[in-house]
């Protein structure tokens, strides 16, 4: 095992797949010689040159459509949006074309494409802090991937680069510099397989993206109070591994969903609904959610701190849920 940052591990996965598959190329703003705003492509331009690391003008709709066409014709493009918020300018292409061509061609055309970008609130203000998880979960045909740990960042990106479907690869900006163990050698992390990152017996937390880290901190606090918290990282939101969540609830009988994204129609709403449909009689308390405030992310640091969940608010929500 080695220790690597999330970004370094993901980049290693990209480099390995680029070496194996000449049809993989990356487009985006500043991903060429500059190596990407978030260092996602550092060193790759020197290896593969401008044909495979192509800087673009600021024209998200244009290059989303262009890469969709390239994917249909056999390439495996990676669009690096830098901040995922910028993808919103290409949303029409993404939903109407990228996600639907496979169906509209009766399965004859495939669109293997990876759309990646930084998500989450990280001192980044209203235009650069979107999570948009549920926007993409809502679209049939898209895979929605939310890696948390460096090993998964690599393993899930490699799986994405072997997938025949469009994959939204959503990297929380606060995770990018976090270090963790990464296995040697080649491996893939499957889609649709949640990870129980901390086993527990009293209550289940399903946490999304960076909230896994905060939930683990909260679980550590509650352990001292004699409360055993199980923390699940779904790893992919679409497909969603509801079976692992239900299995956990069948042991703990209580569920809290922690998501920095907004609560209305969010990932937590979907998870709660599925749990109600399939696990109602396992519940000893209502499903609870902790979400970011229903507002654009403010730029002021004190305000920002107030709108995102943290280990203190999560721990309090868990205490409340346990006396429910």
């Amino acid at each position, binding site marked *: 095992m080695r220790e690597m940052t999330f970004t370094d591990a993901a980049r290693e996965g990209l480099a390995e797949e680029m070496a194996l598959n000449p049809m993989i190329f990356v487009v985006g703003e500043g991903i060429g010689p500059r190596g990407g705003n978030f260092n996602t492509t550092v060193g790759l331009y020197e290896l593969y040159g401008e044909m495979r690391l192509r800087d673009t003008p600021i024209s998200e709709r244009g290059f989303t459509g262009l890469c969709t066409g390239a994917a249909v014709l056999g390439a495996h493009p990676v669009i690096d949006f830098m901040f995922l918020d910028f993808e919103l300018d290409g949303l029409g292409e993404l939903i109407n074309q990228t996600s639907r061509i496979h169906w509209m061609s009766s399965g004859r055309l495939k669109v293997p494409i990876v759309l990646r970008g930084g998500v989450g609130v990280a001192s980044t203000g209203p235009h650069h802090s979107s999570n948009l998880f549920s926007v993409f979960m809502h679209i049939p045909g898209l895979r929605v991937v939310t890696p948390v740990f460096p090993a998964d960042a690599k393993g899930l990106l490699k799986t994405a680069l072997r997938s025949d479907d469009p994959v939204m690869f959503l990297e929380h900006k606060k995770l990018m510099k976090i270090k963790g163990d990464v296995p040697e050698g080649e491996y893939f992390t499957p889609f649709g397989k949640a990870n129980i990152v901390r086993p527990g017996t009293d209550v289940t937390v399903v946490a999304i993206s960076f909230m896994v880290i905060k939930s683990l901190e909260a679980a550590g606090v509650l352990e001292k109070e004699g409360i055993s918290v199980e923390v699940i990282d779904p790893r992919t939101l679409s497909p969603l591994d509801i079976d692992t969540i239900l299995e956990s609830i069948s042991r703990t*009988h209580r569920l809290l969903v922690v998501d920095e994204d907004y609560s209305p129609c969010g990932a937590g709403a979907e998870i709660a609904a599925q749990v109600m449909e399939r696990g109602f009689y396992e*519940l000893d308390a209502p499903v609870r959610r902790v979400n970011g405030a229903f507002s654009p992310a403010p730029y002021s640091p004190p305000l920002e701190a107030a709108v995102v969940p943290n280990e203190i608010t999560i721990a309090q929500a868990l205490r409340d849920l346990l*006396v*429910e």
Partner: protein
Amino acid sequence: MANEVTLPRLGWDMEEGALGGWLKKEGDFVNAGDLLFTVEGDKAVQEIEALDSGYLRIAPDAPAAGVKVPVGTLLGYLVSEDELPSFRSTGSPLTPISSAAGDAPGLALASTTQTNSTVTVSDGSAKDQAARRIYISPLARRLAESLGIDWRKVKGSGREGRIRVHDIQTAAVQLEAAPATVPATLDGLAVVESRPAAAVPAMPVPSIGRVPMSPVRRSIAEHMANSARSVAPVTLTCEVDATQLVALRHQVKEDLLAENGPVPSYNDMLAKIAGQALMEHPNINARIDGDDIIFFSSAHVAVAVDTDRGLLVPVLRDVQAKSLRQVARESAVLFEKTRQGKAAYEDLQGGTFTITNLGMFEIEASSPIIYLPQCAILGVGQIIPKQVVVDIATEKVAIQQRMALSLTFDHRLVDGAQAARFLQRIKRLIEKPFLWLVG
């Protein structure tokens, strides 16, 4: 705990009856075994003995003599001396609220959670308590119902008295520990079903531990007791020549070897045979529903599977319409799922007939218990090579693979001859498996 006195069922078909009259007076002390009251049945007046001891308190809404009421209707209570004050003759805290319209106003219950939302009480002081719904978690409710605990009388420890699974577990443990004479108000706990006091004080027997029953164990216990209580079981046994069945299985095995598919087990073959026999004998493929009998168009054969969690009976559906190979394939997956504890609720529901095979434990014959609401269950014994006389005239003997079958059927639903014909048909199909081809 107060013991309820209810109108007993004097015959299987008795649904209602009338109180003839009390043989004891209100407030009398009654010993278990004393004649307590009479019941007017269809045929005669019968004197009924008290099952428990205690002071008689006639229920305020007890039926008058001669009025027909359903079996199980509450007539009164036998209460201990300690409980007498709470059982004033005007009413009773144990009377279900839904039938307590005549209760004196302000007859407060032990806890605010012990009320029923469907009742509106005109008395203002009781209104808030009576009108509030009882909140209970889905899990707690399911557990309470599986344990037969009346959760309306359990005090909840959750927010605003909401009942959580922990409360039901506590109630279950208290119920287990409570001697039969403990007042019903113990720590907010009360149970509807009364427990008859043991006639003789139990001698303590040394034990090595006490554990709560698992949900599966409880469910099995409930099913079995219910079946033993309500069914009129008769077991028919016979021994069959399974030589051809064994040969068939070998042939099928060889044929399937190349395919890597599951080889049909004897249970699969017996399920298939039972499926055909059930189609030919629809009166066995049936169940009682109220006063009606429902005949099923499909044979859903349940097979008893021994698992770490206890006995489970996954159901093979529509076996009559499936090939043996299909049945084998489905049963391989289903039984494995069951053994691993992953069988879904639906996988264990809807059987119309059950097969239980103890052959692997070298059991020769058994008398299985019917899995309600089914009509019959087939117990299968070990296949043993035996020497049998095949022709008396020539004194010819042969060695055959013999297998014992035990068919337990519900005599409420079918008669002996009908069941015997069904078993005979199964025997025939086992001895001459090529008859399946004919269908």
